[in-house]
């Protein structure tokens, strides 16, 4: 557990350094995540070391949102004053995002399947002249 925390914090720190030094728009922990992902792709021996603690940490991920969520009390008056644009923007954009992602992904999967089929059909024809 301590080992995994040390590894995660090292990746986070390196991510913060990259983000700060190169003035990247991406937050440090996200760069740390990308670096750890690349590391795992190149060398997955690290996976068995960190998998247990990493999944324990992610299992309680929703607890970690609570302190930030309580911040709503600081913004109560803002939300009260702007509740209509906020609610309409949240509901419509969430529906639009689900629909757009699903329709585009479905269309592209169908398209690559349709492109594969004629190729397979012609391949079998060539094998049996």
């Amino acid at each position, binding site marked *: 557990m301590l080992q995994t925390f040390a590894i995660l914090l090292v990746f986070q720190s390196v991510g913060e350094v990259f983000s700060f030094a190169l003035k990247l728009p991406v937050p440090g922990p996200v760069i740390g995540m990308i670096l750890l992902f690349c590391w795992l792709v190149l060398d997955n021996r690290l996976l068995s070391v960190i998998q247990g603690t990493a999944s324990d940490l992610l299992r309680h991920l929703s607890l*970690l949102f609570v*302190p930030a969520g309580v*911040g709503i009390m600081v913004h109560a008056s803002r939300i009260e004053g702007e509740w209509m644009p906020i609610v309409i923007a949240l509901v419509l954009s969430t529906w639009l995002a689900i629909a757009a992602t699903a329709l585009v992904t479905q269309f592209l999967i169908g398209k690559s399947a349709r492109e594969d089929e004629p190729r397979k059909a012609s391949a079998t024809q060539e094998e049996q002249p």
Partner: protein
Amino acid sequence: MTPRLNEIWVYLAATPLLGLTATLVAYVFAYRIYERARFSPLANPVMIAVALLVTALTVTGTPYKTYFDGAQFVHFLLGPATVALAVPLYLQLPKLRKHALPLLGGLLVGSLVAAVSAVTIAWALGATRETVLSLAPKSVTIPIAMGVAEKIGGLPSLTAVLVMATGIIGAVSATTLLNLLRIRDYSVRGFATGVAAHGIGTARAFQVSEEAGAFAALGMGMNGVVTAILVPMLATWVPH
């Protein structure tokens, strides 16, 4: 007796112990309710824990800053937890490779639609600039969304609230919406829910099907990266 109690309260309220303890107790209690409600998305444990804590802080007249002095130890763990998201993402690698291009296409369109539509609608309806900027990263998991909001001049704690609301809206309505659109493939259904409604959507997808859940986790992780890169670029276009 009463002055004594007051003294104890003043002493405790000044240490980080109280904020930290209250956070954990409220969460454990909220999670019990969530279990009792058979994991209904409407009984979201974060929402309940936040409601309990806001009530307690308001009743005792404790300012958010005093609470956060203790709760920051929990908050700090969001950083390493974000790094740890690389692990489930890596475990989806074979699926990621198989449908890489269609997923990438859907992801880019979905990620853009989520941010651009939220910003445009809120701006058109007269929301203030800070609110509009805080809405931009609302479709991704909280640690990433808060980091992005901070970078682009939004209010991270407002973003956290908006992210949670987005997740709950997505988790409650995804099934009906995807049925209406006649999307039958569970991998596509899950992926769209993860892209639009992050972890709360992913939790919901796992309850529907294992395959939907795996692709939702993938969508959540990928949109985290894409939003962290795209939104700061797009944010420069939001008028002052």
